[in-house]
């Protein structure tokens, strides 16, 4: 069972390594969107510090949406998805593996870039640390919930726009608690409450999302 999960993850990471262009698009998008804000709203430190956490988080949501389109679509087109669904293991495990791989490929790089981008917004060191921590808990949620949307819209024309409509509302709690944790540090009220709620939300998506997206996959390939 675990071996199957690892194989799914290793396969997706290997494929991403072979197509670095696709992979880099979402990361560059994240960097560009975040960097546009200081240029657009002007260099006033207080203002930048206020909007910083929210901007980084919103950009992370959009970057994750950008890469979700390819989560199942390529495998669906070349028939490997059918083959994986027919494998002797539960399809939930396949959906979980795909979501974890998506996080490794698209989530972890965001964690590495985020502190650098946070400096542009004049965030203090402590807030930067909490920003990375909130993204570390939050980006797996984006991959897990996003896999539901990607599975539901598989094979539909204009699926990309539909994923946005379906999934962005589900991302709202992650956005509120993620950005809230950093704002808590800035305003001195602390970030524990926000981070705990974000963690609870991660546990819930970890339990439910793979199961739902496995069912959606079955419906989509039919």
């Amino acid at each position: 069972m675990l071996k199957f999960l690892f194989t799914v993850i290793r396969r997706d990471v290997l494929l991403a390594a072979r197509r670095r262009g696709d992979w880099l698009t979402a990361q560059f998008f994240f960097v560009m969107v975040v960097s546009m804000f200081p240029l657009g709203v002007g260099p006033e430190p207080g203002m930048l510090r206020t909007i910083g956490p929210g901007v980084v988080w919103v950009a992370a949501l959009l970057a994750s949406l950008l890469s979700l389109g390819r989560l199942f679509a390529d495998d669906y087109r070349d028939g490997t998805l059918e083959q994986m669904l027919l494998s002797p293991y539960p399809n939930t495990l396949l959906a979980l593996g795909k979501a974890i791989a998506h996080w490794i490929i698209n989530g972890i790089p965001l964690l590495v870039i985020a502190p650098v981008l946070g400096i542009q917004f004049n965030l203090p060191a402590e807030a930067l640390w909490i920003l990375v921590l909130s993204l570390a808990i939050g980006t797996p949620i984006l991959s897990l919930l996003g896999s539901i949307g990607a599975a539901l819209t598989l094979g539909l024309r204009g699926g990309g726009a539909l994923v946005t409509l379906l999934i962005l509302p589900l991302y709202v709690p992650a956005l509120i608690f993620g950005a809230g944790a950093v704002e808590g540090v800035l305003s001195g009220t602390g970030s524990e409450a926000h981070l705990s709620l974000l963690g609870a939300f991660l546990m819930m998506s970890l339990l439910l999302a793979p199961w739902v997206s496995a069912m959606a996959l079955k419906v989509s390939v039919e």
Partner: protein
Amino acid sequence: MLSVHELACERGERLLFKNLGFELGNGEALLVRGGNGRGKTSLLRILCGLSVPATGVVRWRGESISKAHEQYGREMAYIGHANGIKDDLTPMENLRIAAALGGRVLDDATATAALCQVGLSRCVDLPARVLSFGQRRRVALAGLMTAGALLWILDEPLTGLDVDGVAMVEWMIHDHVLAGGLAIMTTHQMLMLDGLTPKTLSVGD
């Protein structure tokens, strides 16, 4: 081994077939016949468990295939219209990953032997992207050989293959069935199975 009862399939509002049933035991092959759009592919997708029939049930070793997902997954191999291979990986990597996903261990010698058998000895280390359509089909067939499955479900296995390739598939099916395996296939071409007469089933008449 495989028994099918009162199968019906609907696509949208249209009924493709109904009351379809057959049994297939060890060492038997079944050729599914029917014109374009009559539901051959739909039938095969139901048989391998990708689609759910409108009514009826497919049983493998006496148990419904939706219940016996794990065992059926180990004993059945399916080749559909799409080859199910990744363009960015070499044929070798494709075989190895497919085996790992099926819970099997595939050593390099076996994989190389299978690729040589389907005539891809010179392409083992090229990405599948640069292979021709027929060569990619051959990679899928090599996957079928290394899958070690008892039941083969083949949807138009001859598409894109040259004369040698067609002979190779005929020989593969022949050997598989003689060794006690089961095969279900659709094709619009003549299939010469050398002394073996497959059962036939017509859909959508």
